[in-house]
């Protein structure tokens, strides 16, 4: 029974979100901290270096870390405010349990563990091992990601382990594995510096990876032309050389048409294509009809702009193409990624200085977290759980019988569907807030309500945890040592600055104790995080994501090491493919034919407007942390519906009018923000809020057939103007995610 025990407003009153502000003059000790701890920001895949000030085992502030090579002190507003997640009044200080009619009550660790373990055993005994599922997150360190993968397979004995990376970059991972046989951004950002042309596709770098902006501006200072593909005039696009304001869902049509232009003009690297790739003929065959008229029709971009972009790309000698969720959150996310890779391979601009390609991972450890096995089909080192050899190797490392290793499980959204079908009855989650971040989230809520037992590990009572039977008070990023792998593939060190407050525990300790109580303690006895990492190194050895040569010492001395790093004397690999030895079975880079197909839901008379979603600079993902930081909340307090004045005129909408947005999944109200910086046929709403402020009530749960990523970035909606305006009350309370 996982319905809310009391009204949501009572839960909010006790557990927040509440906005925290620094006291006037800063926290005690900010002038004279006991120590400065070098670590990283936890709020995106850039993993900017930062120093936390510590006074009396509390975080007192921050100081820029000028020496860390990626960001040299630069930070975004989330990074500056990052220290505010600590000392927070909403922080869970002990385990709590749901009490019907009362809310949540604290309980001891022993009782919490006992009840959790007995429920796991009861459910698995009644319905089978796979009826108890686990959801994890990639804001966790490599060590925790690895340990959770092992925990679910060995201690929980379930196949159904998946993670919120499923909502992040799995399409890019799928595409990269198909094309290169390896899933990592091919280059470090340093290769941007002298790229002649940069394509940024579906990546709102200026808001979601602000510190990467510096690298792009630096390249432009060196003469780079910037091409931005985005339905909105994002800050990065405002001064870009070419802005392609694409209709959501048109990406593979655009890249297909650009490929045809490259072929027609013979802007190709034939030597590279002949020697190092396969599948070229079939790929160009797939785009042979994609002329400019057709492309204009499909993408909504004027053909002159498409031609200009293709010409810049075709004639360049060096280049860098990057993309993010904008092209990946689609039922054809993998195809969109492959159509980008086709442009890179056709020009042969990879594996050379200033010739780059890569996805920009969104989550804190979006890269490392997707490599070491807390994904339903994966084992450490980015191995495949269905591959007998891989299973055998990992079983040996783990000391288990290969037959006891569960097989491939369900992906995140499929787990929700399985709960509805009654196949999954119990759930344990960590670092994942699906009630805000999954699409069609009223359906997700109903699923949570159907669970027989739900235990959540978190530091705050996030929106999803409100439905939990037990919440285990875990640790924040700054409370546990470990490593993460940044979006450019650099393994960096997260240093513990303080210990968890009161009765909260380190996540690692919680997982180890659960494992012990489930009878597998001998396989989970790690005195330190470094011990986990050392086992991970061995487990990843020989896999595509090979960490064997990376040690804590090496990471600290070099301020990061790029994987693959197969041996202790290996310096790491900032730039992939210099050897032209791709990790596909035939050793070649693969072109993949991409025939354009429309999004899973297209506009019609009933739902004539394209709806897309995204992020704002002041919030991180589902907002569990950032919706609790006062200054970040105040910067953009509530989700607004961005609408073009021409579309607004059609509906008689004026700025600040409250608009009811309806899709086939549901409806919700948002104040209008009438701006010329969006396409005339598209509306945009950011997704960081929960409850009635959540746009994910309306998004679609259709998945990419390969990556199983949901189609967050496009669906069809209708707008209804209400006779009300946005209100102060809405603005002031949206962050709380009331229902």
């Amino acid at each position, binding site marked *: 029974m996982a319905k809310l025990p009391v009204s949501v407003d009572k839960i909010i009153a006790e557990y927040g979100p509440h906005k925290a502000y620094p006291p006037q003059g800063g926290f005690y000790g900010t002038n004279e901290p006991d120590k400065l701890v070098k670590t990283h920001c936890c709020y995106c895949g850039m993993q900017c270096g930062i120093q936390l000030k510590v006074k009396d085992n509390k975080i007192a502030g921050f100081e820029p870390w000028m020496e860390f090579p990626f960001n040299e002190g*630069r930070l975004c507003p989330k990074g500056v405010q990052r220290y505010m997640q600590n000392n927070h009044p909403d922080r869970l200080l002990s385990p709590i349990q749901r009490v019907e009619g009362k809310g949540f009550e604290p309980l001891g660790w022993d009782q919490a563990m006992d009840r959790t373990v007995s429920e796991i055993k009861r459910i698995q005994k009644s319905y089978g091992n796979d009826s108890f599922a686990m959801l994890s997150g990639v804001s966790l360190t490599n060590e925790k990601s690895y340990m959770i993968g092992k925990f679910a397979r060995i201690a929980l004995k379930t196949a159904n382990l998946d993670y919120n990376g499923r909502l992040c970059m799995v399409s890019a991972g799928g595409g990269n594995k198909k094309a290169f046989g390896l899933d990592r951004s091919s280059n470090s950002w340093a290769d941007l510096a002298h790229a002649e042309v940069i394509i940024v596709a579906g990546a709102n770098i*200026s808001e979601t990876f602000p510190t990467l*902006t510096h690298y792009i*501006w630096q390249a432009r200072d060196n003469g780079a032309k910037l091409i931005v593909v985005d339905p909105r005039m994002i800050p*990065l696009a405002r001064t870009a050389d070419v802005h392609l304001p694409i209709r959501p869902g048109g990406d593979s049509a655009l890249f297909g048409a650009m490929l045809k232009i490259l072929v027609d003009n013979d802007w190709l690297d034939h030597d590279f294509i002949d020697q190092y790739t396969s599948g070229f003929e079939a790929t160009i065959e797939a785009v042979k009809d994609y002329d400019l008229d057709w492309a204009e029709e499909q993408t909504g971009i004027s053909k002159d702009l498409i031609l200009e972009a293709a010409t810049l790309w075709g004639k360049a000698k060096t280049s860098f193409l990057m993309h993010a969720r904008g092209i990946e959150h689609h039922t054809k996310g993998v195809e969109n990624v492959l159509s980008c890779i086709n442009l890179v391979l056709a020009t042969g601009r990879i594996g050379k200085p200033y010739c780059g390609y890569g996805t920009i991972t969104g989550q804190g450890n979006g890269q490392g977290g997707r490599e070491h096995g807390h994904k339903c089909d994966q084992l450490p080192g980015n191995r495949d759980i269905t591959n007998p050899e891989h299973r055998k190797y990992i079983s040996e490392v783990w000391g288990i019988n290969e037959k006891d290793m569960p097989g491939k499980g369900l992906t995140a959204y499929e787990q929700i569907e399985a709960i509805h079908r009654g196949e999954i009855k119990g759930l344990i989650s960590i670092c994942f807030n699906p009630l805000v971040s999954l699409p069609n989230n009223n359906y997700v809520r109903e699923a949570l309500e159907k669970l027989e037992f739900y235990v959540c590990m978190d530091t705050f009572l996030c929106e999803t945890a409100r439905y939990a039977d037990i919440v285990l008070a875990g640790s924040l990023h700054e409370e546990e040592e470990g490593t993460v792998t940044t979006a450019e593939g650099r393994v960096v060190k997260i240093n513990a600055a303080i210990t968890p407050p009161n009765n909260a525990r380190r996540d690692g300790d919680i997982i180890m104790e659960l494992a012990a109580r489930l009878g597998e303690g001998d396989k989970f006895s790690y005195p330190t995080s470094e011990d986990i990492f050392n086992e991970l190194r061995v487990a990843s050895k020989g896999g595509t994501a090979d960490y064997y040569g990376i040690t804590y010492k090496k990471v600290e001395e070099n301020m990061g090491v790029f994987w693959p790093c197969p041996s202790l004397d290996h310096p790491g690999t900032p730039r992939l493919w210099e050897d032209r030895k791709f990790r596909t079975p035939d050793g070649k880079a693969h072109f993949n034919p991409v025939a354009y197909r429309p999004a899973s839901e297209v506009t019609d008379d009933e739902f004539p407007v394209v709806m897309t979603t995204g992020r704002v600079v002041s919030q991180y993902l589902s907002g569990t942390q950032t919706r609790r930081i006062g*200054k970040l909340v105040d910067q953009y307090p509530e989700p607004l519906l961005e609408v073009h004045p021409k579309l607004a005129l059609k509906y008689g909408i004026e700025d600040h009018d409250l608009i009811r947005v309806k899709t086939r999944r549901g409806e919700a109200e948002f104040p209008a923000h009438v701006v*010329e*910086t969006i396409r005339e046929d598209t509306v945009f709403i950011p997704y960081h809020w929960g409850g009635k402020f959540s746009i994910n009530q309306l998004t679609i749960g259709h998945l990419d057939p390969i990556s199983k990523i949901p189609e967050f970035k496009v669906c069809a909606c209708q707008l209804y103007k209400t006779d009300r305006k946005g209100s102060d009350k809405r603005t002031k309370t949206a962050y709380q995610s009331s229902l």
Partner: protein
Amino acid sequence: MPETNYNQEMAFFVDMQRCIGCHACEMACAECETNGQESMIHVHYVDRAVSTQTTVQVCMHCEDPTCANVCPADAIHQDDFGVVHSADTSRCIGCSNCVLACPFGVPKKKEQAELMMKCNMCYDRTSAGKKPMCATVCPSQALYYGTREEIERMRPDSVPVNSFLFGKQEVNTKVNIMMPKGTHQLIIE
């Protein structure tokens, strides 16, 4: 001023066209010890209805500061390095003359405290040889603090300009704005 490591080789450069409006500078400014969690920098959209253009404004530290001239309380002091300091707390009477007269729109009035506060180029940091908070964190480097040689090397298409013309009034400043090559003054007609 007391003992100081203020480095006069270092200068401040602003380029609003690089600004991505992220407000990192604003958050960081509040962390500057002279401000006590009050942010002094201004970031806002120029006209959000039509563009995502933002502007970012630090104190330009005028050579002959209008704010200090219009202050009835002699509360605004310019030091030997040309840094124009925040109002002297004992003198400022909170009249807002400086707020309304500054051609760059920089000073802020804290209403209840009856006090003007403004950017002092993170004097606590710059006087200790560090970079100001805003320019340190700025992810687009729309705000840059370094030497003239550095900026000229890094941004070959631009030139630092420290002269402004507001109608007929020329204002020369310590802080530079990055302008297209060949420009000597930013003219606000």
